[in-house]
């Protein structure tokens, strides 16, 4: 039932919502603004908000000094690869948990999720050593695997929630109709779960794109993605805020645009099953 809300109350709610929204968005906005300033204006005190000399100089310098496209391509491969690999492993896993649960299924799910609570740095050393031994250091393949493993619990959990919404009788009907397990997953379960799988893909892609700890620690040159591209502008060059901001803006732009266009799908995906 809708509650009656006064106009004043509505206006207040809207103001508060916008304030919080802007507060969260402010760092990103500030980075974007700074990227258009000169280095001097970037560190000016008090800070200049809008009335500065807009310049594209920083972008030109960044573009000239490093190969943006190579970093971008690495990001796409690593985020895309780990997402696809993760889905391929997670669909059967989530299927078995949702439709053939055992007494321990809930425990396994929680245990999987609990691995996300472990500080990543705790396993940095063993993974680093493994990477050296296997010759995976600074390789895209290595990062694809690591990021896939990092995000797998979330993918499995999300898919599990979606699959639980699908009536088991439909899968049983497919079995009665002569479908093998593979056909049941391919022709019935996956098409029915497309909205859920899509938002899982999207969220996971964003998480993998933004992942900085492993991508910074396990890459040097060849496999370095956009996170490394930003980082390369922080320390060795001194504090060139404007250029750093330009690099950051370039790095986050693709994912920001992707996120913007798919926000409906994402919100639906993240709240799916929560209100039933």
């Amino acid at each position, binding site marked *: 039932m809708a509650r009656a809300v006064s106009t004043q109350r509505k206006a207040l709610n809207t103001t508060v919502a916008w304030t919080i929204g802007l507060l969260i968005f402010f760092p990103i906005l500030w980075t974007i603004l700074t990227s258009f300033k000169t280095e001097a204006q970037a560190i000016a005190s008090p800070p200049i908000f809008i009335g500065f000399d807009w310049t594209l100089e920083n972008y030109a310098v960044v573009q000239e000094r490093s190969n943006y496209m190579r970093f971008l391509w690495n990001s796409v491969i690593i985020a895309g690869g780990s997402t696809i690999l993760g889905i391929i492993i997670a669909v059967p896993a989530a299927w078995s948990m949702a439709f053939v649960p055992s007494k321990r299924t809930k425990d396994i799910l929680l245990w999987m999720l609990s691995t996300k609570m472990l500080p990543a740095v705790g396993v940095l050393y063993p993974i680093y050593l493994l990477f050296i031994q296997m010759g995976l250091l600074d390789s895209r393949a290595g990062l694809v695997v690591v990021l896939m493993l990092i995000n797998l619990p979330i993918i499995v959990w999300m898919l599990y929630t979606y699959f639980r919404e699908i009536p088991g*009788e439909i899968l049983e*009907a497919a079995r*009665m109709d002569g479908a093998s397990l593979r056909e049941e997953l391919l022709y019935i379960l996956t098409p029915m779960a497309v909205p859920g799988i899509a938002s899982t893909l999207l969220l996971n892609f964003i998480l993998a794109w933004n992942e900085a700890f492993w991508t910074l620690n396990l890459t040097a040159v060849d496999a370095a993605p956009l996170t490394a591209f930003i980082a390369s502008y922080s320390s060795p060059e001194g504090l060139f805020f404007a250029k750093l901001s330009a690099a950051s803006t370039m790095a986050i732009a693709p994912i920001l645009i992707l996120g913007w266009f798919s926000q409906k799908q994402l919100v639906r995906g993240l709240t799916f099953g929560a209100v039933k």
Partner: protein
Amino acid sequence: MGRIQLKKVTKSFGEVEVIPPLDLTIEDGEFTVFVGPSGCGKSTLLRLIAGLEDITSGHIEIDGTDATNVPPAKRGLAMVFQSYALYPHMSVRKNIAFPLRMAKLDQAEIERRVNGAAEVLNLTDYLDRRPGQLSGGQRQRVAIGRAIVREPAAFLFDEPLSNLDAALRVGMRLEISELHKRLETTMIYVTHDQVEAMTMADKIVVLRAGNIEQVGSPLDLYHSPRNTFVAGFIGSPKMNLVEGPEAQKRDAHTMGVRPEHITVSDSDGLWSGVVGVAEHLGSDTFFHIHETGLADTITVRVDGEVSFKHGDRIHLTPREDVIHRFDGKGLRLA
């Protein structure tokens, strides 16, 4: 062909035995109905036959070959579910064609059979719609279409009509019976509705707590129920079961009199009682009679309209030749 035999089949979920050892033979072409109150194991039994549940011990044979460990896809049976279980992302045409596609039939043959089934079930105009755009009755027909195209050894129906409204239910009941007459394929039908069981079945299997209480034709069960449970379950309104002196007079622990086997009079009769609620159906009237000294309520069925009023004292006489007698364990006495 579709002769299904269950031999010493049992099913337990953990510690709980839902089907104690059970033997049953369903002959080829027979319309068999499993009926019983909810929780009696009738759906579980159907799912065991389908292969959707593993049996705990015993054997299932289909046409003489052991199917106990054969997966559902390979048993050659088709099933219609209570929720219809249509594939929501596929058109009606694709839903019906799905089992044929799984059987790797060629496209022309699939087309031919889907069109054939659609014609039989009046679905031709709806072939390109999605299940979500259909009414309940149409969905049910699609589910049946998906079952018949495969030409299975037997059809399994799991309470297929319980989601339909009363008028549609009667219509679909007739359609399924018609289908059985035409196809002459074995059908196993699960329901809790004894009217469906009585009207459709060649053979009724009455279940209680996983046990078979009686197997027989609808009229066998009506005329000679093996025990008080079957006596009370089959027939509508329910049989009156009376204990005490009146039963002892007839050498029984419990006697059963069907509501249609009692005559009513305002002047004289063997028993007397006070009229409670009357249910007027037009064609006949059910009276619920109290204060008879026999049982809390005695139900009487009278043809047509009879003008007894609430509170009237009336007289009842049972037809002695059709009184059922049961012993202390509830078993029928010869």
